[in-house]
């Protein structure tokens, strides 16, 4: 029976994919009727999830309030857009997606509480959510205990892999190594100065970057400094930069600190068109606050830029702006958040079931050709194969694509030789 069901599903899946591509530009205008005969609820939902004959419920769990709201709002918007587009195409297995939004309030225990509420009370089929590593770490035990499925959008430090999480952002090696290789080759860089915010992601990223610089690029790290989250005084480190004159400043300063950092850098007379700076923490969202004139010339290492020139992105950006306003910008994580509902939909259709165990098992190999960043595929370790790109910040707050890896980079959350 299961064989038959699989065969029956393959065809609609391919068809849906193709139609999905074709429909992307017209999605917001033309809601489509469901075309696949919806399979019986009892067959696709054996674990008591919130799935009816016409609807399936998922959760959205981000900070809509608190300090992280500024970063996470983009993710919420992208997920809602994806859900709306999927519904316009007929939903998932013939069912419309309904979402329940919960506010993590930038508070990690609240994230855990709300995740539990979504899984236990609302029986959601999947959760699109979390942003900071701290919130993910808080939610992870809940996901594993109650067997939920989390689609996590942020680029993060790695060292984690769970049956119950799909990581749609890059892990540290995917984000860092190609960028370092490029800048070492392009700029002949030998000496690096690391500056980061003081928590697990910058520390781990810099650890990996240091090993790569020392062991692979045969360069030197001339300084490594950390500042508390929210710090706004960078004068002492800027003086050290002036003294050590590194070829590259490599930064993973996050959040509001960035504004102070780049302004002070400029005020201290460090010209980013001459001094190479590679950041892994500044996206279009952050530039909104920093101001294009303060950061123009800096290089950022990401997997997505709003300015990417490909057909998928050319339909994604206008659709996003149409839904959320002309002034919104789309950063790397926002794009990764957009992938969550789509990957879940494709996986459900591949598995022919909403059951979490089946989705976890079916995830490896699921490919999404409509991704704004280009083609992506889920790896056995539940991370995504994706390209690494380097962009250069422009005055208008956008990035100009300078370099991208030729092939997809394999995700490696537990990198050997880098720990």
């Amino acid at each position, binding site marked *: 029976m299961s064989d038959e069901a699989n065969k029956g599903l393959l065809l609609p899946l391919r068809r849906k994919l193709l139609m999905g591509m074709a429909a992307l530009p017209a999605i917001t205008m033309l809601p489509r009727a469901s075309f696949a005969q919806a399979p019986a609820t009892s067959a696709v939902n054996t674990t008591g999830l919130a799935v009816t004959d016409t609807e399936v419920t998922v959760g959205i769990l981000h900070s809509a309030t608190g300090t992280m709201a500024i970063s996470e709002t983009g993710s919420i918007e992208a997920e809602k857009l994806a859900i709306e587009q999927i519904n316009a195409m007929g939903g998932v297995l013939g069912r419309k997606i309904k979402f329940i*939004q919960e506010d993590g309030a930038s508070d*990690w225990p609240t994230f855990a*509480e709300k995740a539990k509420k979504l899984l236990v009370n609302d029986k959601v089929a999947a959760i699109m959510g979390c942003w900071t590593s701290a919130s993910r*770490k*808080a939610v992870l035990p809940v996901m594993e205990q109650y067997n939920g499925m989390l689609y996590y959008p942020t680029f993060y430090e790695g060292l984690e892999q769970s049956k119950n999480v799909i990581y749609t952002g890059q892990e540290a090696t995917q984000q860092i190594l190609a960028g370092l290789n490029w800048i070492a080759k392009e700029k002949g860089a030998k000496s690096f100065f690391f500056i980061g915010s003081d928590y697990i992601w910058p520390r781990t990223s810099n650890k990996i970057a240091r090993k790569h610089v020392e062991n692979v690029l045969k360069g030197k790290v001339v300084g490594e400094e950390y500042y508390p989250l929210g710090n706004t005084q960078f004068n002492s480190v800027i003086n050290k930069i002036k003294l050590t004159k590194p070829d590259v400043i490599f930064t993973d300063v996050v959040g509001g600190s960035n504004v102070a950092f780049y302004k002070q850098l400029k005020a201290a007379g460090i010209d980013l068109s001459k001094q190479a700076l590679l950041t892994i923490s500044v996206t279009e969202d952050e530039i909104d606050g920093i101001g294009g004139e303060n950061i123009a010339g800096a290089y950022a290492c990401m997997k997505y830029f709003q300015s990417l020139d490909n057909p998928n992105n050319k339909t994604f950006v206008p659709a996003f702006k149409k839904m959320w306003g002309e002034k919104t910008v789309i950063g790397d994580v926002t794009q990764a958040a957009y992938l969550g509902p789509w990957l879940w939909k494709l996986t459900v259709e591949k598995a022919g079931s909403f059951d979490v165990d089946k989705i976890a098992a079916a995830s490896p190999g699921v490919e999404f050709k409509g991704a704004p960043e280009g083609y992506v595929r889920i790896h056995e370790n539940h991370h995504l194969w994706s390209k690494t790109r380097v962009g250069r910040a422009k005055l208008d707050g956008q990035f100009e694509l300078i370099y991208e890896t030729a092939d997809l980079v394999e995700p490696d959350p537990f990198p050997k030789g880098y720990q």
Partner: protein
Amino acid sequence: MTDNRFFNRSEFFGILVLAVFLVVVLPLTLDVFRLNLVAKYLTYAFVALGLVICWGYGGILSLGQGVFFGLGGYCMAMFLKLEASSVENTKIQSTPGIPDFMDWNQITALPLFWKPFSSLTFTIAAIILVPGIFALIIGTAMFKRRVGGTYFAIITQAVAAILTILIVGQQGYTGGINGMTDLRTLKGWDIRPDHAKIVLYFFEVGLLFACIMIAQFVRHSKLGRILVAMREKEDRVRFSGYSVANFKIFAFCIAAMFAAIGGAMFALNVGFMSPSFVGIVPSIEMVIYTAVGGRLSILGAVYGTLLVNFAKTSLSETFPELWLFGLGGLFIAVVLAFPNGLAGIWGDYVQPRIDRLISSRKPKPDGWTDSSVADGAPAE
């Protein structure tokens, strides 16, 4: 009017009602998930209870109770984390057998101060003593020099800020901003499944009543009356030959220990501990619970905590983007309209009617609101 028993008739009645509410009504009406939420709320009630003694009776406003909540919670979490980090559980790490966040921070051996926390007895002692001694040191340093009022409140805030920075900065030893997550078992007993949550809930309610009894005892003893006298006219008490500083230190230490018990129960109930409970904002929130409940009322503190947290959860579930405004409005309304909080409403409007109904005698309305004292009348 006050006697030296733990409680008078109406107080006994109030405690009984609370006991029935927590032990019978809630467990019968709520599912395990909501009951676990109540257990989480009640961990703050310990803090609020301490604040009633320290702030309501002693007049010492501490805006740093999160420090003690955090210390208690971290002590418990360290024990649980060590147990969860057995060599078998952590074999993918470069150094198996140490907590995962240490491994991420390139620490290769368990730090010395972590070692005693593999003993449960030591941990339980530490939960009470570490915050107690810390409060003793702060209290002695402040009150012996007659630092009080606003200055004391500011200093407690500073301590809260310092401790947060310390915890976040020393992430190799404390888990940093992520906190200590994924706590699993207590002496081999899994704290995560539903039945464990129910057991923990009743255990916590038991502890809460023990603390309520201690608070009642303090309140009705001579000590409690000295605290009130001190609040009203510190110099007079000092000139009567009492060491004001010692009484203040005592009240502050009791509040700290209550908060620490709450913190430890939090780590058990929620399964993790993070610096977000240590800082200034949570500390002020805890004061708000007490204010909403009525800072002079021991039971009011419990109800206040429950009410605010229920409101927080249900508002944020219904209005995920606007709920903070609703909550803020609620606080302003309560403080403007009912300066003595829930207990004030009860004492002024409900209690007199019940008393009139029960007996024809008309007792003085000094129930658990202690409104006579609040009005500035002499304590005896």
